[in-house]
């Protein structure tokens, strides 16, 4: 095969058995790779009703056909499993260098089933694989684990692993690769921990074969030239300030979630935005494999309390731990970010859970004696300390480790958890960006925008500006962006490059450039229609899994704060999110029933009627 390596490695952790399987060409074309492979495998093999932290759960790590090909940002892999945070699926992806190495070692995807009796790691070297003892690594940080594994396998090996948070089954533990790249969301790290799988270590010296290298090269040169010319015209904010630059946009459009989503603007924003980060703490940029953008930040903080060196923060971290907790001390946010990277925690859920605890204390529903320390808005030291305690499940950290929904519900106030399907939102306020609310409510992983990002058209004006306060007509555009995201996530690309550079310049965002790359790489000869259909197939298959796990329209919700309490400040003052109106329109666009269930004819049209359990 071309683009695809044609092989999947199945790892039965209970029996300690490894088996190679060929990739079926039809499934490869229909589901593309990455996220598509994930759901294709889960729907046949995982019980949607299983306990996510039991041996019954299945975990898939899958690359895309463009991963490792040299296509810009073709660097990603996806981790899909049933989430211990939401009970729905996960869809956590990361770039860096590990995913490319996995393909160079000969595999498109890894399937993990069962549970090892003792801690183990998987060592893959150019097509051969074995499970090895990992007792000596248990309890080690992600950085220490990576260093130790490289010294005992190969200095050039690439590592994806969990930290102590994943071992302790923190419900939002991350899987970290190349030390600081996070497959962050929905607790994929806890699933690894529950399986006693500490790490996957890979060394590969092979190449990804291309179906038509000439055509691939020509299209690649054209794409990069266009990208560079545009960047000369308007210097790319992502390169200059990383995603942290987004604070400027969200603050000025009044959609920067502040004080656990009680406000849409933050008075301390100038202390935490991307320019401040660049001026005070940036050492240099960092790029994933084959990425011309380089949004990664290597930072160093000289500070007696919050000093350190590492990677980050991203915009989402700055919102969750900064404005949302009203912490205007960027050094404290960075310190908490470093702890998350080393302990293997999702920064969004961590920050949002602490913000929720701050509001619970503020409203008198939680006593500081229970927390074991003062917890006022803006307390940077509390942010850092509670992050550390959460990773260790120490004291009150044990309750934070369950995420904001379980914390707030245990105190009788679930309405203060800013979540959809129990997962905390990223940093865009839906009252001032209506489609964002629809994206959060309908995302298969709960509170997330990365599975179809309306910020592009509502806030960034890509491919064209759309009024963020209007809700009519948003369902159709949101669906188009979700379909596009499914293709991006499955091909192995990064959304930051693909939306701007590889999709048509209209609001139905056809994946035109991705099609070019896919066809040159795989020879699968996708028509545009087939590729759009593949995106719809992936999204509908995910929905089908959720329905089987017991989800329906009543779970496609937002907290009342966003749908019933008018935003008190900023440009979107007085607005609520008109979710119900958008939802009806959205189900019609999807060809799902009023209850949000895919219709039989829709399933048949996408070839999804037969399989699945």
């Amino acid at each position, binding site marked *: 095969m071309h683009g695809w390596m044609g092989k999947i490695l199945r790892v039965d952790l209970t029996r300690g058995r490894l088996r190679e399987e060929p990739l079926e060409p039809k499934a490869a074309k229909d589901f593309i790779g990455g996220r598509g492979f994930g759901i294709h495998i889960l729907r046949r093999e995982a019980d949607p009703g299983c306990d996510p932290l039991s041996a019954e759960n299945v975990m898939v790590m899958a690359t895309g056909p463009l991963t490792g090909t040299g296509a810009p940002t073709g660097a990603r892999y996806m981790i899909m499993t049933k989430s211990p945070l939401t009970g729905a699926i996960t869809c956590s992806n990361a770039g860096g260098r590990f995913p490319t190495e996995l393909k160079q070692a000969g595999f498109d995807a890894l399937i993990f089933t069962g549970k090892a009796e003792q801690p183990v790691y998987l060592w893959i070297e150019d097509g051969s694989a074995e499970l090895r003892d990992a007792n000596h690594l248990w309890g080690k940080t992600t950085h220490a684990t990576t260093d130790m594994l490289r010294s005992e396998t190969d200095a050039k090996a690439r590592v994806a692993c969990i930290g102590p948070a994943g071992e302790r089954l923190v419900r939002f533990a991350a899987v970290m690769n190349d030390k600081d790249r996070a497959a962050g969301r929905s607790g994929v790290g806890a699933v690894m921990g529950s399986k006693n799988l500490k790490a996957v270590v890979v060394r590969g010296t092979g190449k990804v074969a291309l179906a038509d290298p000439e055509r691939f090269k020509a299209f690649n040169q054209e794409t990069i030239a266009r990208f560079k010319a545009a960047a000369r015209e308007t210097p790319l*904010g992502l390169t200059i300030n990383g995603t942290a*630059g987004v604070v400027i*946009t969200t603050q000025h459009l009044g959609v920067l979630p502040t004080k656990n989503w009680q406000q849409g603007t933050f008075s301390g924003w100038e202390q935490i935005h991307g320019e401040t980060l660049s001026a005070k703490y940036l050492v240099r940029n960092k790029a994933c494999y084959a990425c011309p953008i380089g949004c990664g930040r290597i930072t160093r903080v000289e500070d007696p309390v919050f000093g350190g060196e590492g990677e980050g923060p991203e915009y989402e971290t700055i919102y969750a731990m900064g404005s949302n907790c009203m912490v205007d001390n960027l050094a404290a946010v960075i310190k908490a970010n470093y702890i998350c990277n080393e302990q293997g925690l999702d920064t969004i859920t961590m920050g949002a859970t602490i913000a929720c605890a701050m509001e619970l204390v503020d409203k008198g529903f939680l006593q500081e004696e229970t927390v074991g320390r003062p917890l006022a808005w803006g307390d940077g030291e509390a942010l850092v300390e509670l992050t550390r305690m959460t990773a260790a499940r120490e004291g009150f950290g044990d309750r934070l480790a369950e995420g904001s929904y379980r914390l707030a519900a245990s105190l009788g106030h679930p309405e203060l958890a800013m979540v959809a399907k129990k997962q905390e939102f990223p940093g865009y306020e839906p009252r001032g960006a209506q489609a964002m609310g629809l994206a959060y409510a309908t995302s298969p992983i709960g509170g997330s925008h*990365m599975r179809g990002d309306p910020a592009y058209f509502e806030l960034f004006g890509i491919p064209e500006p759309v009024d963020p306060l209007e809700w009519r007509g948003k369902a159709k555009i949101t669906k188009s962006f979700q379909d596009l995201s499914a293709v991006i996530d499955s091909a192995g690309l990064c959304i930051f490059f693909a939306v701007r550079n590889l999709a048509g310049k209209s609001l139905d965002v056809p994946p035109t450039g991705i099609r070019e790359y896919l066809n040159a790489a795989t020879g699968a000869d996708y028509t545009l229609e087939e590729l759009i259909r593949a995106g719809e197939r992936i999204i509908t298959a995910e929905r089908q899994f959720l329905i089987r796990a017991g989800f329906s329209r009543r779970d496609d919700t937002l907290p009342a704060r966003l749908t019933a309490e008018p935003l008190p400040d900023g440009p979107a003052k007085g607005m609520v999110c008109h979710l119900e109106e958008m939802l009806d329109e959205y189900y019609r666009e999807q060809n799902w029933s009023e209850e949000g269930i895919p219709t039989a004819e829709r399933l048949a049209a996408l070839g999804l009627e037969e399989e699945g359990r």
Partner: protein
Amino acid sequence: MIVRVKCFTGLRRYAPEGRKDFAIELDAGARVANLLDRLGVPVATDLIAAVNGRRVARETPLQDGDAVVLFTPMEGG
């Protein structure tokens, strides 16, 4: 009339002496487009203009004392 202007990131290079924050005198009735013209921002530049906290179109007229913020749309997630 005089308006206060803040430029961020990609647009800083058009601010007088690269300053982040400055005041500028414009003819009465001037629009956002006239301000951009005065600063030498090319018409094709991808940007967001906010006046007194509201995102506005380039044709929007400015008033004395307005606070204008100019920035390139920064994406990310």
